[in-house]
């Protein structure tokens, strides 16, 4: 491109970039503004992360992750039981909400897509996504705690499941609807029954999208505090102090108040004692890391699904 065929002629200054022109100036100002707003939006996120790492990080150790919560002013201690409690309750919630959500999504997207039931369920799920989480707690309190006679891990699981179902359902429905119609057609053209189409073509193809939804729901549930206050309460002890010898006993142990990271943070952050406040910071860091890891896993799965 060294010798252009056309020699320069006339005044070409209007082709050059200049900040004196109003259009260019406006463009520059808007670029700066959008950049600045993006930075401003990131400030809360990074200040929280910074505080968590500086104040919670210094306490982080294996003993903190594995020991029981300390009494006021007592040295050492940790929140191992809260980690276990959170994992147990989120697992219960996932075990309840994932089958519900996915089966309902299959109905809405695949079999009853034109029915009024589907439209009603879809609308209800959308409303439920905006449900204040404390109401899920109150619901589980009435439905499980009052019925079984005490605060328990399953009650917490039910409360979290109520929050998870709409997310799982709506993302799974979206993923199922994104399965190209031509693949469905191919399966039907081969003589696949509706069940075979759903189980062997639609679900495997939609699986990455569905797992993303489950991950997002799990991440949200792990961080919820309000519903657990009504249902699992808190405990200073392990769920099962003795190793579970057979199922009924283990189940019996589940039916007691159960610790969780979120409630531990809530309790200890209001404590007047420094050791408990420090533990709350460390627990907050651990919780954020757990949620972050689950979220990243979800993103990774979503990216894999975006590839053809």
């Amino acid at each position: 491109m060294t010798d252009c065929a056309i020699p320069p002629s006339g005044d070409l200054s209007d082709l050059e970039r200049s900040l004196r022109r109003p259009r260019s100036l406006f463009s520059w100002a808007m670029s700066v503004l959008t950049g600045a707003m993006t930075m401003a939006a990131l400030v809360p996120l990074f200040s929280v992360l910074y505080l968590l790492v500086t104040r919670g990080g210094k306490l982080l150790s294996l003993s903190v992750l594995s020991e029981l919560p300390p009494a006021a002013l007592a040295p050492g201690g940790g929140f191992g039981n809260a980690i276990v409690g959170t994992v147990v309750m989120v697992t219960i919630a996932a075990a309840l909400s994932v089958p519900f959500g996915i089966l309902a999504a299959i109905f809405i997207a695949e079999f009853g897509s034109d029915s009024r039931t589907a439209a009603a369920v879809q609308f209800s799920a959308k409303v439920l996504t905006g449900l204040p989480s404390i109401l899920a707690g109150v619901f589980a309190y009435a439905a499980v705690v009052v019925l079984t006679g005490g605060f328990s891990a399953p009650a917490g699981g039910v409360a979290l499941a109520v929050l998870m179902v709409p997310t799982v359902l709506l993302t799974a429905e979206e993923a199922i609807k994104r399965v190209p119609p031509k693949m469905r057609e191919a399966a039907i053209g081969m003589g696949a029954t509706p069940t075979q189409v759903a189980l062997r073509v639609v679900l495997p193809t939609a699986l990455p999208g569905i797992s993303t939804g489950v991950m997002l729901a799990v991440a949200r549930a792990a961080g919820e505090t309000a519903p657990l206050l009504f249902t699992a309460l808190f405990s200073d002890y392990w769920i099962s102090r003795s190793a579970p010898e057979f199922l009924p006993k283990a189940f019996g142990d589940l039916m007691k108040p159960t610790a969780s990271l979120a409630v531990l943070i809530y309790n200890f952050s209001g404590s007047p004692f420094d050791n408990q406040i420090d533990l709350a910071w460390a627990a907050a860091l651990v919780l954020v890391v757990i949620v972050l890891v689950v979220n990243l896993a979800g993103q990774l799965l979503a990216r894999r699904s975006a590839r053809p």
Partner: protein
Amino acid sequence: MSPQSHSSNGNGNTPPDLLIDCKIHELFYGKFKAVRDVDVQIKTGTITAFIGPSGCGKSTALRCLNRMNDLVRGFRFKGCVNFRGQDIYDPKVDPVSVRRHIGMVFQQPNPFAMSIYRNVAFGLRLNRYRGNVAEKVEEALRGAALWDEVKDKLHQSGLSLSGGQQQRLCIARAIATEPLVLLMDEPCSALDPIATRRIEDLMQELKKRYTIAIVTHNLQQAKRVSDMTAFLYVDTANGGRTGYMVEYDRTEAIFASPKQEYTREYISGEFG
């Protein structure tokens, strides 16, 4: 509304070499009358082509043959499709089992988002095939003239292949379960001329084992590959757009000496 509105069949008395007798009296999507008066007989081991301008209902007619139109809401059908002595629109017939005997290859290559091997094995799994699946997969891929190109990457995604290869994969998938009939809905319209040529050569091979019905936009393709040709045209009278069959004959006859004026004009490129 009764499917048995014609006299020549419905009781299992199709002549031995006649595989499909398709009589579409009227076909509706909702209130829209899409096709009328199609009458096509397909013999075992032949290739039958449906040609005609866009919107003339040739794909719709083809999809009648394995009840793919059942998926369309508001689909109503008057007529009958007799397949080996059984009217497949008889209420007691299960459309799913019809499709296991009458396979289909679609316009857009549509492999599943799974490996090449699993794509071909898909139909075998549907039928709970108990024999040697790997052997069947190889046989189907050889049958579709794809084996040499994919034998070293059977476990790569079917979507990683080129368009022409994907279409041959779809053909392999369709023939793995050894259907009697293969329906092809414009199988080459998304392919370049070289890939098209390969599919056409392949059809001549497939013809030895399967009966084929093909819809094509490409007149030369119909002339090259088919034994019989049905020409459909659109009737725009009364504001509708209803497709109907103008002429059905041996392919040489259709192209050399069409009996109908519309056919002659269409073949010679005077319209459409």
